């Protein structure tokens, strides 16, 4: 029984013509799998490697460089909420914001809430410093965030 559905495999194969070799599809494939399965398991790594004509260790070696991807022991919740902790956000209350939100939802950065709805993360500069402190919900940025507006955004998810 394979971990990657035929649909997911098709999406990965659709990336091949964009690059001169299959290895370059490593990041796009990891994103596709990670988005769908909320983690990249060891089995998934083996199957990605088969598709890309690589050794599983090559995929694993690349994947673990980027803190972005979660393994099967730390799967993502339904949504991922990133709190910027870099300089402009720190200067405008980003650290206090993250602390209050973590307290409210009973999680530490990197953890998923008990109901599996959100994974809270800290991020390095999100590139929205004119709206510091800012957060990223999945891949959409929200600016000028207070603990209240963060909670409102999260509760709407």
């Amino acid at each position: 029984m394979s971990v990657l559905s035929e649909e997911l495999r098709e999406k990965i194969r659709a990336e091949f013509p964009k690059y001169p070799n299959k290895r370059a599809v490593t990041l796009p494939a990891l994103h596709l799998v990670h988005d769908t399965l909320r983690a990249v398991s060891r089995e998934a790594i083996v199957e990605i490697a088969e598709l890309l004509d690589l050794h599983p260790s090559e995929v694993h070696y690349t994947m673990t460089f980027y803190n972005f991807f979660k393994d099967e022991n730390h799967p993502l919740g339904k949504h991922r909420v990133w709190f910027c902790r870099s300089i402009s956000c720190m200067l405008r209350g980003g650290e206090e914001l993250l602390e209050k939100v973590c307290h409210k939802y009973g999680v530490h950065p990197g953890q998923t809430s008990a109901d599996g709805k959100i994974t809270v993360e800290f991020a390095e500069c999100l590139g929205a410093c004119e709206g510091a402190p800012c957060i990223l919900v999945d891949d959409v940025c929200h600016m000028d965030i207070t603990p209240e507006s963060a909670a409102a955004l999260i509760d709407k998810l």
Partner: protein
Amino acid sequence: MAKFEPVLFARIHKPDSASLKSYQADGGYSRLKEFLSMAPADVTNIVKDSGLRGRGGAGFPTGLKWTFLPKDHPGPIYLAINADESEPGTFNNRYLMEKDPHQLIEGIILACHSIRSNKAYLYLRYEYGTSYRVLDAAIRECYAAGILGQNIKGTGFNLDIVLHRGAGAYICGEETGLIESLEGKRAWPRIKPPFPAIEGLFRKPTIVNNVETLCCVTQILYRGIEWFKSIGVPPDPNNPRDPGSYGPKLYCVSGHVTKPCCVELPLGVTARELIEEHAGGVWKGRKAKAVVPGGISMGFLSDKELDTKLDFAGPGKVGCLGLGTAAVVVVDDQTSMVDVLYNCCRFMSHESCGQCTPCREGTAWMTKILERIRTGNSRVEDLDLLLEVAGSMGIIPGTTICGLSDGAAWPVKNAISKFRGEFEDYIRGQRATVTSAQKLMAVH
């Protein structure tokens, strides 16, 4: 002097500014056919003669970079667009991509024609989801309108643009780190030479340019060399190696200001003018204690250095590393420089790729020493220890492959030389001032 009119940002406030229709209504792509009919070398010469310098941080002359490609190479030659904007405080490229993607795409087409490339990879940081969707839609519009793909505008020129999303790593902004990442590997910067122009992406000649740089290319082609050179700062006659700082620049102002903003101004504006005239002054009626001139890796200006011109040469004259990304971050007089420096060091320690020992270890140890200072367990001698570590890492002492390490060392060197008294007082006070929120962040 006539009032400066924004050019790169001329369209960003218009409704629907990202659509092809709106871009064409403002004259976009109108002369593309004419430019594609020019000899590639003539386009390169225009960019070279304009004096355009890369906007990504290093300020290398763009046209000159293009001439490093091998002559008569059978191809393929690649253009990689660096949209991995991750330097803390920087967000100018986000505006350009979200609000005026066609200005960038036209620049990409012109650059590819000039360097004889038929394939461009746009490496976009994952966090810019909105930019991704806007660019994806804009690229589709171009294919449908015959502006991308085969035989563009009937000129016989072919070009494909591939959007490639990163996965949250600062080091992918270093051009060879970006190339490695695009190839599906760890983003470990390569030893140079060979430079990417000789052997880059997929071992083929490659030019890596920043988003704002390519938007400038579009404007230079349409408006001419004379226009570009009428803006900014000419070369210093006393410095034969200074190529000058021509053209408009997008300055990002954030941190402790009333109105954080991204504003287009001629190169050479002062930090004071940016803060007071464009960002509404320091917030809450306070004074600035320190100002980051161009992203944290450039170091700090003290309150006495606010009249420094933010052109390519200015920050270096007061001990900073350079102009960097022109991201100005203001720190008010109520903020501890110990906290600010800790934040910079923690960032660099988190983002060091780990390839070179002086950087991997140096960034981690500088962060640990600052943690020790913040928890009240340090000695004044720790400041000299910090300087010693900072002085041993980077391309400048010659111990690392890429410049991340210099960017990690510089805020330490600047903070301790310019604010030493504050650090000493902090240490002598031996008080632990770390709040619970700060403790939560103390993970590298």
